[in-house]
């Protein structure tokens, strides 16, 4: 075979040991307990080992190899609990290759070490600091209209984003291994997060105004509208004080005391 002909032969990626579908789903569902024994030393290490165990049992029939595999996942691990799905998928991708003898244990260790920090930052920014406040403020703002359905809407809205993304991250990790980073970058989570944060702030402002108006209407007495407006002024003042690092609890008690005293004696 000439050199050119040899170059044109497609080089196949070595095929990995394939985990059964059932085990992949078991690992995914067990990842819901990732933080069950969160501890200051290994952080999520117990949860990771717990989630991976069914896969390790299938990949390593030899107890000694299985023990070595488990031991390498009992080291420090901490990332965002949702984005951990992508890492779990990636770890399984590597473990399949290790079981086949296609690579040593270093790539999986490096994969975890390299990704857990950035993925934690990505998950914190989108889920904890954007999606959660936005859905929380929006649904709290809808309580006067939807009543208890607002709480159900909160769960529905949040999990309509959270659960499909979690499944998607896991499958991407399983399929792409290290390349999961590029796929996650395409999700554009930071840009979407910025829009959600604006929604959260707007909902909070609207709700405060709505509650003050409702209370002002329901109370009899000529002073009621003034007291309702006073509540809004207290809110605006609180925003200014919070920006100057005033204690939240102190502000809440102070506002309650002020409103209670005014409401009682007017």
């Amino acid at each position, binding site marked *: 075979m000439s050199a050119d002909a040899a170059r044109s032969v497609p080089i196949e990626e070595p095929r990995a040991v394939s985990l059964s579908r059932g085990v992949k789903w078991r690992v995914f569902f067990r990842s*819901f*307990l990732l*933080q*069950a*024994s*969160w*501890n*200051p030393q*290994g*952080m999520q290490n*117990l949860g990771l*080992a717990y989630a991976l*165990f069914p896969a390790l049992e299938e990949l390593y029939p030899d*107890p000694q190899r299985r023990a070595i595999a488990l*031991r390498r996942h009992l080291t420090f691990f901490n990332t965002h609990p949702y984005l951990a799905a992508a890492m779990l998928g990636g770890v399984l991708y590597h473990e399949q290759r290790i079981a086949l003898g296609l690579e040593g244990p270093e790539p999986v260790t490096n994969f975890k070490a390299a990704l857990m920090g950035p993925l934690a930052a990505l998950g*914190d920014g989108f889920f*904890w*600091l954007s999606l*959660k*406040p936005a859905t*929380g403020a929006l649904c*709290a703002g809808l*309580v006067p209209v939807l009543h*208890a359905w607002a*709480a159900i809407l*909160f*769960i529905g809205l949040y*999990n309509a984003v959270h659960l499909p993304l979690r499944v998607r991250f896991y499958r991407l990790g399983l399929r792409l291994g290290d390349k999961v980073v590029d796929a996650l970058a395409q999700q554009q989570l930071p840009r979407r997060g*910025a829009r959600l*944060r*604006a929604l*959260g*702030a707007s909902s*909070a*402002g*609207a*709700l*405060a*105004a*709505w*509650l*003050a*108006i409702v*209370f002002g209407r329901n109370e009899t007495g000529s002073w009621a509208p003034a007291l*309702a407006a006073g*509540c*809004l002024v207290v*809110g*605006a003042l*609180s*925003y200014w004080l*919070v920006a100057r690092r005033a204690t*939240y609890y102190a502000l*809440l008690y102070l*506002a309650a005391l*002020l*409103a*209670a005293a005014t*409401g*009682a004696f007017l």
Partner: protein
Amino acid sequence: MVLSSHVALAGIWGGLMAVERRAFLQAMFSRPLVAATGVGLLMDDLSSGLYVGLVLELFYLGSANLGAALPENDTLAATGCAAAAAAMTGGTGASTPAIWSLAILMFIWLGHAGRFIDRALERYSTRLEARAIESADHGELERAVRQNVWGMWPHFVSFALITAGCALVGFLCAPWVELLPLRVARGLAWAYPAMASVAAAIAARGSHARHAALFALSAAALVILGSAAATLRWHP
């Protein structure tokens, strides 16, 4: 009978929410709006749970579990306040803003106490980790991974007991709440929208949005203008 079943239900719900928040799934069932509404539903007083949860949802909107930092325990504050409010309503017969305010003022500090308990329970998890590593070293792999599950029960038990305790205190306080002078009750009722305004300000700040004040003020202005327009339309 009603008292004991309500206290028990509130406790079980409080324990479950603590586990959901910390250890299992984290699908936001443990957020104040949902957790407190659940307490209200179980104690036959949906309104108290819902309106206590609303204020606490806003109050704790910006808190997040970032890295190893522990935030205030919003779930414990929500289940505790809602259980106390629902129990007071059970004793007095009416769910009022005065009762919601009283419950929040009495038990919101549980958010702070909950963080302290979370930190204390980490010592137990650290022991579990040491036991898991020791088991793995001895080849007892199933025992090693099982340690992860044991980390949940202290959270369930401690937060269930605290929530049940709040419900019990609420029931015990109910006769005293009925004796409150009208002026005090009216004052406490006005404390509710004031606290909601403060919580909304904290929420707007905690939303981490750029120009959060502008968004919050614009939305508030829109609601006020909309309400004024609606009033003028009905009463020209």
